[in-house]
Structures are given as C-alpha cells and as structure tokens.
C-alpha cells in the first residue's frame, strides 16, 4: 500500500438533524420529506450533500463536511488516488462506473488510495458526468 497523506482539511461544515442513525465518515443526503434532516446515502450513485463527521443517533444534530480534503470510508473495491468517487448503497466511496448512459453523481477525486473499509481522503467538489460517450 502506498503511503497515505491523511491530512484532513475541512473548508466548510454545516449541521442538520439526523433522520436515522448516521455512521461517521460516510456520505449523507438531504431527507426528501423533511429538508431540515439528513439520511445516509443508501442507493448506489445517490446524491450526497456531504460526509458526516461523527456518528449521530436519530434525531440528533449531525455535523456534515462539504468542502475541503475530507476523510471517507471506501466501499467495495476501494479506490486509488485520482479516481472519481461516487456513493455506494451504504454511503461509502467507490469508483464511478463507465456506463455511457449513466449520469454519475461524482463527489470529487481521491487524493489517497484506500482499500475497502479503510479511510481515504477525497478532494470534495461535486459534479455530474456521464460514464462515457456512447456514439
């Protein structure tokens, strides 16, 4: 495993109430029914609003990081520095796919390698992109 640079540097945080238990250093999203709350990202390629900094019980206020070099738990297959990262179905970071007709909700690029369930650093700056040009 290459050397890691686990220098977390948070440029922006905000807080929202947890609609369910949140697991730290995973991706969260705005609750659709109550936009003052956040849920865990729970479908692959979900639309995150940030990474929850500390675990939070349901109905407790949670701290969410959404700008900077942020720690994130890696999902299946892990990721490598430079990879474009999306959410898996448990709020972990995985490498985006390459399906031409799928719009991937990329949260940023990895700055370190991370194996599955390890913590890596991601340069958090969201955008969307298709997996390829099918033409």
């Amino acid at each position, binding site marked *: 495993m290459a050397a890691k640079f686990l220098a977390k540097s948070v440029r*922006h945080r905000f807080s929202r109430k947890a609609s369910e238990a949140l697991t730290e250093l995973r991706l969260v999203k*705005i609750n659709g029914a109550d*936009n003052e709350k956040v849920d865990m990202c729970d479908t692959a390629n979900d639309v995150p*609003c940030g990474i929850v900094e500390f675990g939070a019980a349901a109905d407790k206020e949670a701290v969410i990081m959404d700008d900077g070099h942020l720690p994130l738990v890696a999902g299946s297959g892990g990721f490598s520095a430079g990879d474009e990262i999306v959410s898996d179905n448990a709020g972990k970071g995985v490498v985006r796919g390459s399906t031409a007709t799928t719009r991937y909700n990329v949260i940023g690029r990895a700055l370190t390698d991370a194996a599955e369930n390890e913590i890596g650093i991601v340069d958090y700056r969201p*955008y969307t992109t298709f997996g390829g040009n*099918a033409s």
Partner: protein
Amino acid sequence: MRLPGESVTFTVTRRAAAALMPHRFVRLKAGDPEQIQLCGSNESALGIVGFEIETGSEATIKCGGHLIVEAGTIIVAGDEIICGVSGTAIKRGTSATTRYNVLGRALCGASIGQWFILAFGPYTVFGANAS
C-alpha cells in the same frame, strides 16, 4: 419549512452595470469584467447578490458556500440548478445537445418566487447522453 441557514465562504465586489435584484445570479459584463449584471438563461454565473443594488453602485457577490437564491421554478432538494430568466434559479433541463452551466445543488425545496439554499459549486454537463 424553515429556510436552512446561509453560510457564505467567499465574496468579491464588482460595480453593477444595471440595477440588480436580491438573491439572483449575476455574471461579469461582457467586455468589462469590472462590472456585473444579472444572468440570463443558462449563463455561467459568478455568484449571487444578496441585496438590491442600484446601477453604478458597488455590489458584494457571494461566490462560495450555502447561498440563498430565488426560485424561478419549483425546486426539489438535490436538483441541479442553472440560471433562468433574470438571474432566477431553475432546475437544469435534459436536452442531450445542450451543455448546462450548473451552479450547484439545491439543499431544500422551494416554490416559484421563494428563496432556497443552494450548495454553490459550478460545473458543466450535458442534459443526457444522446447516443
């Protein structure tokens, strides 16, 4: 619904080339980047003005953070937002041959004319893959 808090992380100032309405997207004036004006549809915005500004006055433009903006259509949390007419915020379209100048994602929903919070972060993307 309570409007979640605004959190501005970066601002710049420019002179208003024309009157500006509050909580609307603005862009640099073509040919004179020392001045700003309201954005038109799908134009790339520099940021959002927070106050009504008279022509010729210096305006503070919010360019980073979670920013208040006025909805030009119904907005749902998570929508990718672009500029509509007169600097209002609308959901991006799905035209495969249009490159949309997305300005960020909505953090809460809104009806037309209401304010909502935008996680400001510009990028461009086509509406769909036409292939």
